[in-house]
């Protein structure tokens, strides 16, 4: 019994780290660009499919793990140059509208290329099987998922806190003029940040592929979860995305043992509870 809970807690951590990667991307973009990306879930979905396609073509998971997120980021970079930057100055409604348009294009393109029915993705050979710890056994891939995303999270934190790029992003969140004063090319910074944020969603998609598979209609569901995380953790906050992501992952995972059909429902229940208790999120201030 206790093992079952340990199992679910580890599952929840893995799930939570996926949610963290998605939401932190959303949050970085919002923090610097004051832009809400409603295509974020669709880019995640694309990550899942790239994982599938690259694995099917090459059989190399490591290649998929590297090339998948980079491809998603490159696409986002192009979309930012071509479309997104033209609407920064408009109200949020137009940000939402244009990214809903992008999401529809991605979703329908995925159906055109890979068909309307989802694809399951095999777990890479090197990570198949379980790790045994005494009587307790846990799937290798899921353990890898937790460790790998933790490393990515740490690298991201270093990038944001310890590099010039991170300093510029943080300065830009306060005031974009400051970035210009610091002598940086603000447009380049915007493109890179958008690509980075979306690339993180792509990475989350690739990582979750072998567990959940790829499905063309994943976008809206993932977007909903990302919103829950940032409503709980606060937009523009690295720690908030981590705490919110883990909380939601754990809630969903533990609920699976108690009430499997209602697990997804409880994510939103948890959010409603947090909003009732603290309208500005766990770390937010009025």
């Amino acid at each position, binding site marked *: 019994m206790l093992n079952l809970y340990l199992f679910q807690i580890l599952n929840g951590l893995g799930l939570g780290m996926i949610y963290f990667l998605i939401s932190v991307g959303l949050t970085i973009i919002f923090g610097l660009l004051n832009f809400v990306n409603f295509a974020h879930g669709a880019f995640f979905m694309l990550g899942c499919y790239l994982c599938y396609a690259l694995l099917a073509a090459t059989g190399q998971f490591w290649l998929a793990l590297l090339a998948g997120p980079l491809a998603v980021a490159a696409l986002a970079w192009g979309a930012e140059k071509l479309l997104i930057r033209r609407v920064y100055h408009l109200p949020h409604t137009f940000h939402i509208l244009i990214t809903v*348009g992008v999401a529809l294009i991605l979703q329908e393109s995925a159906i055109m290329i890979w068909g309307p029915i989802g694809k399951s993705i095999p777990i890479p050979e090197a990570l198949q099987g379980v790790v045994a710890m005494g009587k307790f056994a846990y799937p290798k891939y899921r353990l890898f998922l937790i460790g790998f995303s933790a490393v990515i999270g740490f690298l991201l934190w270093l990038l944001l806190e310890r590099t010039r790029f991170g300093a510029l992003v943080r300065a830009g969140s306060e005031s974009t003029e400051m970035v210009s004063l610091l002598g940086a090319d603000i447009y380049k910074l915007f493109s890179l940040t958008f690509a980075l944020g979306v690339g993180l969603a792509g990475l989350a998609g690739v990582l979750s592929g072998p567990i959940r598979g790829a499905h063309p209609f994943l976008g809206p569901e993932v977007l909903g979860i990302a919103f829950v995380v940032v409503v709980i953790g606060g*937009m523009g906050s690295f720690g908030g995305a981590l705490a919110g992501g883990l909380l939601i992952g754990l809630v969903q995972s533990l609920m699976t043992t108690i009430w499997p059909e209602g697990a997804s429902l409880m994510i939103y229940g948890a959010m409603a509870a947090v909003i009732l208790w603290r309208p500005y999120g766990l770390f937010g201030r009025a």
Partner: protein
Amino acid sequence: MVPLPKGVWGGTTPAVLAILALLPVAVPSATLATEILIFAMAALACNLLLGYGGLLSFGQGLFFGVGSYLAALAMIHLEVGLVAALAIAVAAGAAVATAVGWLAIRRTGIYFVMLTLALAQMGYFLAYTLSKWTGGDNGLLDVPRPPLALFGVELASLDGAYAYYAFVAVLFLAVYVGARRVIDSPFGSTLVAIRENEARAAAVGFDTRHFKMLAFTLSGAVTALAGALYAMLINYVPLDNVAIAMSEHIVIMTIIGGTGSLLGSLLGAGTLVLVGEVLSAIWPRWPLLLGVGLILLVMFLRRGLWGGVESLIARYRRRGEAAE
């Protein structure tokens, strides 16, 4: 500035009457005409929130779905008639929308939008979880379309496509006229004031939360009515009725038509339903074109179709004046 309409029966109402009369002959089928009016109703309700209150809600699909499910369940399990089923849907839609509004308006701006979307997702998973009642993924089948009856007296069968169209058209007209009254009421004008400057609206004495919540209540009631009518139109409630895609659909119609004008909502719903009908027959991946269309709209037609029509009229008038 929003001009004050001249009484609810003047202004654009005659134009709406004409459209209602011509629609079933202008489009390929009465069923399609009915669908246009149902979504126009939903867009109208969305417009009250977005165009007048400045509240972008992604909860509209939830209210639509609540109307669909509740009307259908009441007819199937309680064997209630048409009027009672619609009344139940409207009451439930109003109640759910008030609750969503109450939670979502605790935050403003983008958090508010995200909250409405997340709460709508909650409704989706609730419908999914309660598959014993809703049919889950398979949808709720065999939704009846009872005859129009009052106090046990049957007035008209609605089985025919045209008869049902007429019934929906009458309801649409009532909603349209009602919406114009709401906009021209102290409440409607205060809603516009809150959209314009919430801090000032509070400073002159309005408890802005109450106004936003009432906007949700009214919007939810009308959207649920549309949902119930839709379930009776297609005799079925797909799970998609409560999905985010439905919310997006309603919001897109509203914005394509043009916010801040009720006629725009009819225009937006008509365009999207018709284009969808035509294109989906040719190419099932037509939503891709819708995506392209949305991008073009943001780039070139930010005030929506109605806004475009208005600038055309203005340009034409200017030319006329110049010629004189």
